């Protein structure tokens, strides 16, 4: 079976060949996204949002936005305040932009940090296997047991002063396991492949094999997972902020804006405070997920659309 399946994919035909196994994976990814109108649209939207958010926030002064203005509390959207103001008289649009930037930054930071930890941990465990794997897996098991949300909430209650970095670190500390497990299992498979064995017989060092041979072959998987994780992490951050365990209001975040809706007055009468943030979260998560799903399809030959 092995034989015939692979033979089918002779010279030009990489139809049946797992795209993770081919350098043109990127091309396929590109092709897949372009073909998938929704994903393409999502990608463009996402890019626009990111550029806008980071671009516009350069011209915004966070201090100024979070400055309380007693005389413009809960103003409806108007020319001076495109999206009105909140109960502190603060400009919602500005908060939305900065909040999105903060939420995105945390999401990205957490994703990258969990990614790096997870990749290294998973690669080492999977590649070396045996006792090392055993020990690392026990550590990982332990982290898996921790009820994430609760521990983070307890943690946040303790850390006296937090910044984007320290908040991200807390989240990272309890979120790296998923990717580590994934990478480990893939690395376990990958290291059995002959090309790794071949490198060993050719005298390449383990470290070099791990990072220059195995890692690139897991890259599309990593990209896919990290993309999907990014969405999840943004969701988590806003969830925590929503519960009141995120940032103080002086550091706007999307979750904080949504959490204003827990005041039924705001929920009912002041849509401009929370609806834009909710929609933005949804749009962000949807587009990131769409892109992620398209990437996933691109790397999974069976699901590819064409």
């Amino acid at each position: 079976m092995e034989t015939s399946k692979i033979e089918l994919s002779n010279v030009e035909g990489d139809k049946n060949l797992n795209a993770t196994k081919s350098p043109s994976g990127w091309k396929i990814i590109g092709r897949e996204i372009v073909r998938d109108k929704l994903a393409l649209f999502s990608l463009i939207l996402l890019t626009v949002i990111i550029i806008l958010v980071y671009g516009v926030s350069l011209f915004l002064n966070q201090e100024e936005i979070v400055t309380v203005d007693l005389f413009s509390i809960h103003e409806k959207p108007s020319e001076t305040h495109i999206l009105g103001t909140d109960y502190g008289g603060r400009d919602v649009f500005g908060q939305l932009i900065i909040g999105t930037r903060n939420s995105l930054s945390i999401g990205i930071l957490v994703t990258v940090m969990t990614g790096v930890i997870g990749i290294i941990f998973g690669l080492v465990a999977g590649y070396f296997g045996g006792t090392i794997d055993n020990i690392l897996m026990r550590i990982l098991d332990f982290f898996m047991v921790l009820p994430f949300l609760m521990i983070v909430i307890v943690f946040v209650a303790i850390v006296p002063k937090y910044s984007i970095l320290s908040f991200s670190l807390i989240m990272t500390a309890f979120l790296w396991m998923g990717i580590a497990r994934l990478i480990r299992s893939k690395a376990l498979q990958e290291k059995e492949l002959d090309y790794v064995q071949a490198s060993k017989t050719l005298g390449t060092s383990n470290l070099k094999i791990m990072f220059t041979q195995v890692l690139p072959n897991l890259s599309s998987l990593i990209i896919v997972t990290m993309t999907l994780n990014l969405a999840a992490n943004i969701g988590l951050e806003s969830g925590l902020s929503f519960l009141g365990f995120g940032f103080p209001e002086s550091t706007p975040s999307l979750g904080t804006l949504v959490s204003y809706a827990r005041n039924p007055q705001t929920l009912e009468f002041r849509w401009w405070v929370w609806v834009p943030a909710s929609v933005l979260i949804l749009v962000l998560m949807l587009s990131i997920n769409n892109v992620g799903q398209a990437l996933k399809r691109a790397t999974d030959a069976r699901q590819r659309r064409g």
Partner: protein
Amino acid sequence: MSFLEVNDLKVHFPIRGGFFGGTQGYVKAVDGVSFSIEKGKTYGLVGESGSGKTTTGRAIIGLNKITSGKVLFDGQEINDLHRASKDIRRDIQMIFQDPYSSLNPKKRVSDIIAEPLRNYEKLTKGEEQKRVQELIELVGLSPESSVKYPHEFSGGQRQRIGIARAIALKPKLIIADEPVSALDVSVQAQVLNFMQDIQKELGLTYLFISHDLGVIKHMCDEIGIMYKGRYVESGTKEDIFNNPQHIYTKRLVAAIPDINPRNRSQHLQFRQEVKKEYEQSFNKYFDSEGLAYQLQPVSNTHLVALPEKG
């Protein structure tokens, strides 16, 4: 003094289990194998799936840990290749079974072939480029192949890339683990021919692992037959094919389909006879655990696993 000598090689894999991964038993993948190969010859290792052929090859090149026994290469013990001198490590190379998985799909052909050179030889970019081009030409690929990726090649071409990589360091011994079993007949022919060519050209010694007796007969000078981690018979090509002694060998040989349709009824009959004999005399040839006995010489080239006389 043989070029490669393997003495009572054992490779046992622990069966792990339990929370702390304790050893709960062993898979005796290779269980006391001895053979030797002369320089410039091709030695064939045959047996059914799971008989330990691959493990033997991998143990020699250091991919599997040797449980006990000795491997002598050119007179030097190389049981632990990691500690063996660099020269020896570069003298033994391997060709893998699956031409698809043995090449890193994310690397260009030039990088793949240059990998051993980068590990062992300090070459400038230019020199390296030159060597790679030479090797590519040597294995009969077009020069522009070097910038391509493995998936742009057919199975046979990929196997040649694998071979180019293996010979880049001018090794003396090549372990070829089923180099053609993943290939179509037509492509298989191409690779086998090529292997024979470079053997002559570079004076290589092959340890050729296969389960296809046809291929083995075509390629090898001497042959060892494995069964459940042990040798059942070894000898020259003639010894094995014309004068098989062990019932297992006979059965293997009889199972090879005959390419001449006119022979088929005789062949079937012969096969059934052998089968009958196999069933009847199984206990004679195998010990109580169903494993082969120690090898006994029947001629100075021919060894068969038979119970000790007496």
